[in-house]
């Protein structure tokens, strides 16, 4: 076969494939639309009656929430953990948390960093109960090179892996930038617990559903601060509306060099950190 012959053959083949592809797409679209039924336009963010959503005093299209953590201020008092458990009816035990605090300690002459959180057995013993939280003074007699506390919570990512894997639509990202869980639709498969690169989700055996931080959605929609921010005595936690250029979080991001955890995962987190080392992720 020479080149003169092959040209028309190739063109014909391309045209045929293009038609085939188009036909398949059309068929797929028809079938898809038919299968799903009539889907209303998803782009309508506000209810048609002109009221606000999700409550009558709060319009989620007007906000874009964000969270800041200044690890240089954290004193590790764990009042945030306590307040969160109380506010959100999180199981009172030492292994399920919506927010938690980690301690990073470099000892003199040691290569690896020592990391513990309030769930460490030594810290549980110091608190005297699994229902109370405190950091034990365990490095009192050690030579500490460097140490700091890091509060952690759900990052409310812009592209959350947990939402992507949910088979039932029980977890989703709201218009105002909060990732929520619909406990009525969660079937307890725990895909999301596995998918989160930050370990922010846990499974609540009692309720049979996955659970995690909501940035206290029931508080922020009423104009209050999340419980952990409200009780933090040193201002290590900052919360606000990124659409408001004078809000605490906007100022925090503007006035500090901030970073997010594990940016390489592509989740685009919305909790911004100041004062953490490379070991923190």
């Amino acid at each position, binding site marked *: 076969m020479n080149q003169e012959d092959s040209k028309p053959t190739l063109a014909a083949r391309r045209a045929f494939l293009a038609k085939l592809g188009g036909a398949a797409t059309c068929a797929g679209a028809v079938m898809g639309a038919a299968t799903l*039924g009539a889907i209303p336009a998803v782009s309508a963010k506000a209810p048609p009656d002109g009221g606000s959503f999700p409550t009558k005093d709060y319009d989620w299209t007007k906000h874009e929430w964000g969270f800041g953590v200044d690890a240089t201020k954290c004193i590790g008092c764990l009042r945030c953990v306590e307040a969160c458990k109380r506010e959100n009816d999180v199981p009172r035990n030492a292994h399920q948390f919506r927010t938690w605090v980690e301690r990073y300690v470099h000892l003199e002459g040691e290569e690896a960093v020592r990391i513990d959180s309030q769930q460490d057995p030594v810290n549980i013993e110091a608190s005297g109960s699994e229902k109370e939280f405190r950091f034990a003074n365990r490095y009192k007699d050690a030579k500490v090179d460097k*140490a700091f506390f890091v509060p952690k919570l759900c990052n409310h990512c812009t592209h959350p892996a947990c939402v992507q894997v949910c088979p039932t*639509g029980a977890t989703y990202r709201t218009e105002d930038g909060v990732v929520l869980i619909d406990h009525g639709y969660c079937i307890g498969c725990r895909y999301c617990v596995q998918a989160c690169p930050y370990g922010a989700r846990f499974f609540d055996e009692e309720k049979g559903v996955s659970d995690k931080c909501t940035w206290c959605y029931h508080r922020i929609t009423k104009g209050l601060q999340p419980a952990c921010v409200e009780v933090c*005595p040193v201002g290590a936690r900052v919360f606000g509306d990124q659409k408001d250029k004078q809000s605490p979080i906007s100022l925090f991001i503007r006035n500090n060099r901030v970073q997010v955890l594990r940016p390489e995962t592509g989740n685009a987190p919305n909790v911004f950190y100041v004062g953490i080392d490379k070991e923190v992720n």
Partner: protein
Amino acid sequence: MPKHIFRLVSLIAGFLVVAIVAKPFLTVDSFYRFGHYRANSVTEIAGQEPVLQTARYCQDCHTERHAQWSASSHKSVTCEVCHGAALGHPQNGKLPIPKDAVKLCTLCHEAMAGRPRSQPQIEVGQHANGQQCTICHNPHSPKIAAASVKVAGNAAAGKQRAADCTACHGAAGLSPNDTWPNLAGQNAAYLVRILSAYKSGDQKDVAMTPLAQALSDADIQNLASYYAGLDCKGAPGEKAAGDVAAGKSLAKNCAGCHGETGIGSNPAWPKLAAQKPGYLVNALKAFKAGLRKDPMMAGVSRGLSDTDIADLAAYYAAQSCQSTK
């Protein structure tokens, strides 16, 4: 079309029809309203009731406490951090007052690697012999006034300046009158603090205010050194109307700062031993009424009756002004 193909196609078509018909019945209305989730669940979550009520909620009833707290260095520690969530209070009863202050306060104030330097921290084993923190610190206003006042005055210069004081406080710092305090042997740091308060207007007294305003800071230092150095021996235990024994048992609450017999360990706080009973009564009543302002004293004097005050005054007045140690 071969028969088996026809059957297959009709089977698939049948499934499709059933699926299309069943889908709207099996999907709740609010699903797909904004996306692949139930819109009503957002409303449900947003509708939950907040448990922590914020300090603003406490302010209306606990006005006085709120004012004291919000002016103190503890204003960043909200009410509910120590007293628990206020949801259901006052309907469902009182909120707890923390019993073990050492356990609570050290959550933030125990010296620990990792805590920023700006955080006030104590070595738990070496601070206050393990006493409850609330004995010396008012949790609603924890900073102890002028605890670290340094006195470096000249007693001789103070003696000259003291000429204006002798009419009321006596030539040797021992007052001839029941309502004016003895100054001889008083803690210098306390004298500096109280004179400075009269000078600045933080504390007011018809006689003392103009006198103190005429003093320079150096005068105050000198006077304090002079009176602190005087001998208080001439002030024997005074007799007063109150019940000394009752006062002694009440005074246990004061011992943390003022010592068992009215001689405390911290020079920022006044010695009470052998002080004039009339003066002690007036001072306690002034604290109770808010005329003299001190966060710690306001708290402890609040619960004292007039009889309690008289008993306490009688007890301290009857003590020896010299340390038995």
